[in-house]
């Protein structure tokens, strides 16, 4: 297993390198730059050229690339072109803990609600609980998340004044963002769990367990769950990576000072170093999460041979 993990980590570093390279060049193909005249209308062109020179943006692309990779290998992701006096490392160090706290709570909520709801829907197929989960899941995916956010904000912050509409100063501030983040994820996890559980419940070994007189709770919780959780684990891996690094809409609407906002603003601002820094960061998270997921397959289902 240690050898396998080592192999995966090596492969991960190689993919990270490819990822940075592709993103670097794609980003520079997009017209405009952080100091292009169309961005800063009131600054004389001469000054803009000087600023670009200072940041090395007038060098040939390949030189810039070499310099970036060199710095990256030392763990230096450069400075932000838009936020003054801030390095990308500082930006991530400041934003990530905030995003991660909200994200982790979102992931936990999604799992704690989604998995049991899916199991109940499968066991009581065609009954009221199943119908409820179906309606809930459908609303969860067919109403855009920003509509849910706005509606929640209106009801809880404006009308009933239960929760603050922005900031994370107290525990109350977390409830709405976490709920809104988890909402559509719950919907998906519920449906996935239900579908997979329905298939497992048809298997012969479940009938065998039942005919042996094993209590239903144990049949479901011990035997059926283990054999049907795989799709959920698969989905949760990348989901953890993306939720921990922040969600654009949630962070924007609830004014949360996390990383999610930058994923869009850095690209529209052509803030090259921030875009690349975030890509490296999210990329490593994805690679680690998928490694954990693959190891979990082998733990949950010993038949899976990933190390071969």
């Amino acid at each position: 297993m240690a050898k396998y993990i080592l192999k995966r980590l090596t492969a991960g570093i190689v993919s990270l390198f490819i990822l940075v390279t592709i993103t670097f060049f794609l980003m520079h193909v997009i017209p405009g730059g952080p100091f292009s005249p169309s961005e800063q209308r009131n600054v004389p062109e001469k000054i803009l050229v000087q600023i670009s020179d200072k940041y090395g943006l007038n060098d040939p692309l390949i030189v810039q690339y070499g310099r970036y990779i060199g710095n990256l290998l030392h763990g230096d992701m450069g400075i932000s072109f838009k936020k003054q006096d801030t390095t990308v490392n500082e930006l991530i160090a400041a934003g990530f803990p905030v995003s991660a706290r909200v994200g982790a709570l979102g992931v936990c909520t999604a799992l704690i609600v989604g998995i049991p709801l899916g199991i109940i829907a499968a066991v009581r197929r065609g009954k009221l609980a199943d119908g409820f989960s179906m309606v809930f899941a459908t609303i969860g995916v067919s109403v855009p998340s920003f509509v849910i956010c706005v509606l929640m904000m209106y009801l809880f912050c404006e009308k009933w004044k239960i929760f603050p509409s922005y900031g994370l100063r107290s525990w109350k501030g977390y409830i709405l963002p976490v709920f809104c983040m988890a909402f559509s994820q719950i919907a998906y996890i519920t449906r996935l769990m239900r579908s997979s559980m329905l298939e497992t419940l048809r298997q012969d070994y479940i009938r065998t367990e039942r005919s042996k007189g094993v209590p239903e709770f144990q049949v479901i919780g011990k035997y059926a769950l283990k054999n049907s959780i795989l799709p959920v684990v698969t989905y949760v891996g990348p989901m953890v990576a993306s939720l921990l690094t922040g969600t654009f809409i949630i962070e924007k609407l609830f004014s949360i000072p996390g990383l999610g906002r930058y994923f869009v603003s850095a690209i529209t601002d052509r803030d090259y170093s921030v875009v690349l820094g975030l890509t490296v960061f999210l990329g490593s998270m994805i690679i680690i999460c998928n490694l954990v997921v693959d190891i979990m397959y082998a733990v949950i289902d010993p038949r899976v041979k990933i190390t071969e």
Partner: protein
Amino acid sequence: MPTIEPNEPTHSLSMTDEIPEALLAPLSDSEREKETISRPSVSYWKMCWMRLKKDKLAMLGLTVLVIMTLLAILVPMFSPYTYDQTDFAHPLEWPSALHLFGTDKMGRDIFVRTMYGARISLTIGFTAAAINMVIGVLYGGIAGYLGGMVDLVMMRIVDILTGIPSLIYMILLMMFLGNNIQSILIAMCLTYWITTARMVRAQILTLREQDFALAAKVCGLSKWQILIHHLIPNSMGSIIVTVTFLIPSAIFQEAFLSFLGIGIQVPMASWGTLANDAIEYLFSYPYMMLFPASAISITIFSLNFIGDGLRDALDPRLKK
């Protein structure tokens, strides 16, 4: 010559023995008819279709989806209004007989716009689904079944594709191909199969170790046959759930692009952009949100019903 009783096992006759006349009597008609197969032989897909037809909810979903598609095609063709026709004398009107779904701030008829939006949203949704079914299933299936180095490389490619910020290549595509539906579709082709691929790979990893896969191998089936005929049908459940969920997510991704100013632009409309535009009127003119959001919800409900029915119909274990 010994007499042979008719009910004696026939293998007692050796090849050289003559068959006595008594045994060669023709069967009576009634006896012969017992042997004919009364039902025509049914292929797997036909069987699936027959099972699907019996599922009332699935058929309801299918009917709704067909009606929705027909409305999307016909309403913009025969309506007295066009999707971009402004009427500044009647802006923000509540639903009435004249404007079934009311009008927006420019006096455009929301009914026509919703149906016109259905064209774009359904095209995007169904394309996303088709890509999932083809690329995602095959990619994930091959990675999972072959395993080892192939799996390692294929899944790292997927990691890289997930890591590239989607906004970057979407901006690039829009730049080279223009702000139109084609570029959105191509952008979706690039990455929309990834979730399905991961899902299928995970399923295949466990399925390939199960006894029926071994049995298929022992029977001498090729790897391809095992994958296509035995492993993938068994992971249909999560494939279908993923597809029914990626359709709405594709519809909203398109809306998000318009929101950032790089998707389709007004006066064109899709369900997602209609919902986006309605946000600012959510509390004063909620009908503007209600209709596009309901159209999306109804479609998703139908898809879920069809998906559920299809999953049962495709399950070879449920053969009756």
